[in-house]
């Protein structure tokens, strides 16, 4: 067994830092173009906050895409449902939302977010069993079924809550900004960044430090082999789908508070954005999704400030540029 025992040193694994550096390079490159330091900080913080909210919405979709090879065009429904469900708590308890105490605000915000996640996750269970289970492995039918599901969900929201836009004011203690010299940093954006980072770290912790995480990572790469090792990957699919739907619901609440309004088509409006992030990041890659969300938000904010007319197409241009550079996204995980 000489030849198998002869162990040549492995080539040092190449650590691919370039995608991680992209947001930093982009931010620094924008500084001279924007001119004003305070505007640059405001735009950068706004980008980070917006990116975190998009990441929360997109993280579930990228895992579902990577692990289950499911094109879920109905992902936006979970975003809308999450936002609407939150209004069930936030509107009746408006006095708590308008109270001056941060603790009182959070005491109503936290249950609203948890309820939104729970209902969106439960809806994910129903959607997976009813709409997706019959069409596993059939992309065209998946697109038709999930797009249909999105339309049905949107119309159901109209039927239940009416066609009007529902105002959803920010809790009092999250209004306004922290002022540091010339720089104003919105309080809610800081909260959005914090929540986004917690979600990112939580997902990374589960994926890298638990056996379930190992199974998800292995399943993204080769579902068949995971089954041949004796694991029922369908159950794992369902769990990931529910968690992904729940995160979309949380993202919906965050986004609705950011916009201070809820409407039935908000999920539909965000679907394209979320798909762009998932494609840019590389299907199934949480790290890629995180960077992709940041880049999309930065391009939208910097682009909107510098060349407002470009804002409409900036995300598409970004996606084209990234895919020309890396056709399978920033961090390719699957071979699909």
């Amino acid at each position: 067994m000489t030849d198998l025992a002869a162990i040549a040193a492995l080539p040092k694994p190449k650590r691919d830092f370039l995608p991680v550096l992209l947001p930093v390079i982009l931010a620094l490159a924008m500084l001279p173009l924007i001119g004003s330091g305070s505007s640059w900080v405001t735009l950068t913080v706004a980008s980070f906050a917006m990116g975190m909210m998009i990441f929360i919405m997109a993280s579930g979709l990228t895992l579902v895409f990577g692990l289950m090879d499911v094109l879920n065009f109905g992902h936006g429904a979970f975003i809308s449902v999450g936002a609407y469900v939150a209004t069930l708590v936030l509107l009746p308890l408006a006095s708590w939302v308008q109270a001056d105490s941060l603790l009182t605000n959070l005491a109503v915000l936290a249950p609203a977010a948890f309820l939104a996640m729970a209902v969106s996750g439960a809806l994910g269970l129903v959607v997976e069993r009813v709409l997706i289970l019959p069409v596993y492995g059939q992309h065209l039918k998946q697109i038709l079924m999930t797009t249909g599901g999105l339309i049905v969900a949107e119309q159901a929201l109209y039927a239940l809550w009416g066609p009007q836009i529902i105002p959803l004011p920010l809790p009092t203690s999250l209004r306004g900004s922290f002022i540091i010299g010339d720089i104003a940093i919105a309080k809610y954006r800081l909260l959005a960044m914090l929540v986004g980072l917690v979600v990112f770290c939580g997902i990374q912790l589960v994926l890298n430090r638990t056996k379930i995480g190992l199974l998800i990572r292995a399943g993204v790469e080769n579902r068949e082999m995971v089954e041949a090792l004796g694991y029922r990957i369908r159950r794992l699919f369902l769990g990931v789908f529910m968690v992904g739907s729940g995160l979309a619901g949380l993202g919906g609440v965050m986004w609705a508070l950011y916009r201070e309004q809820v409407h039935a088509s908000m999920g539909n409006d965000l679907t394209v954005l979320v798909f762009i992030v998932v494609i840019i990041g590389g299907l199934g890659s949480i790290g890629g999704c995180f960077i992709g969300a940041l880049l999309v938000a930065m391009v939208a904010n910097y682009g909107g400030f510098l060349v407002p007319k470009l804002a409409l197409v900036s995300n598409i241009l970004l996606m084209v540029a990234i895919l020309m550079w890396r056709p399978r996204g920033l961090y390719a995980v699957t071979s699909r």
Partner: protein
Amino acid sequence: MTDLLTLAGVHTHVGRYHILQGVDFAVPEGQTTMLLGRNGAGKTSTLRTVIGLWQASAGQISLDGQRIENSATPDIARLGVGYVPESMAVFSDLSVKENLVLAARDGPLDDTRLEWIFSFFPALRRFWLSRAGSLSGGQKQMLSIARAIVEPRKLLLIDEPTKGLAPAIVVALIECLAEIKRHGATILLVEQNFHAARELGDKVLVMDNGKIVHRGEMAALAADVALQERLLGLSLEAHQ
């Protein structure tokens, strides 16, 4: 010698293709059964059907007396079947350790067994925390086999483990498989390398066009050049 695995009249359809066309054979416990045949004969399809990745459309498959032809892959694996696919299918984004942790589904890794595996696959110890994707082809094959034997299994299904490896690595790998065999494993081994087949096989099955066209002792086939040429299109000697 009891039969651990038996296939009786097994047919498999993949899409509109009729791949296995009534496969019958038995794998005796504690022995290595070679499955030989030309490319496209149905060898890989046979292993995939046994492990349940492709559902048999007709026939019976029994493992240790239990019918499994309608069972799902995870259930078959949990009955004690280890599978080493032709593509190796190591999880390249996971470390060597993580690949083996996943394979040890019944609990934490058994240190004694791990030492036994390291004794013939020393590279796995050295690259324990390295990404499996950065291993060489031979090392990936070691990992793929180690994954199948990290816990005791009743039956090992191994698909062309020497494919694409350098000749020196092949010789070493044959020694490793022989050690696993000495440990009492029951193996159904698909192999195109006749040297490997002769070294490892107790019994031999030859497939052609989705059917078993020959079954017998490996030693008898190895000694009969005319039979080799008739069944396989070339002799063992021609392959040396």
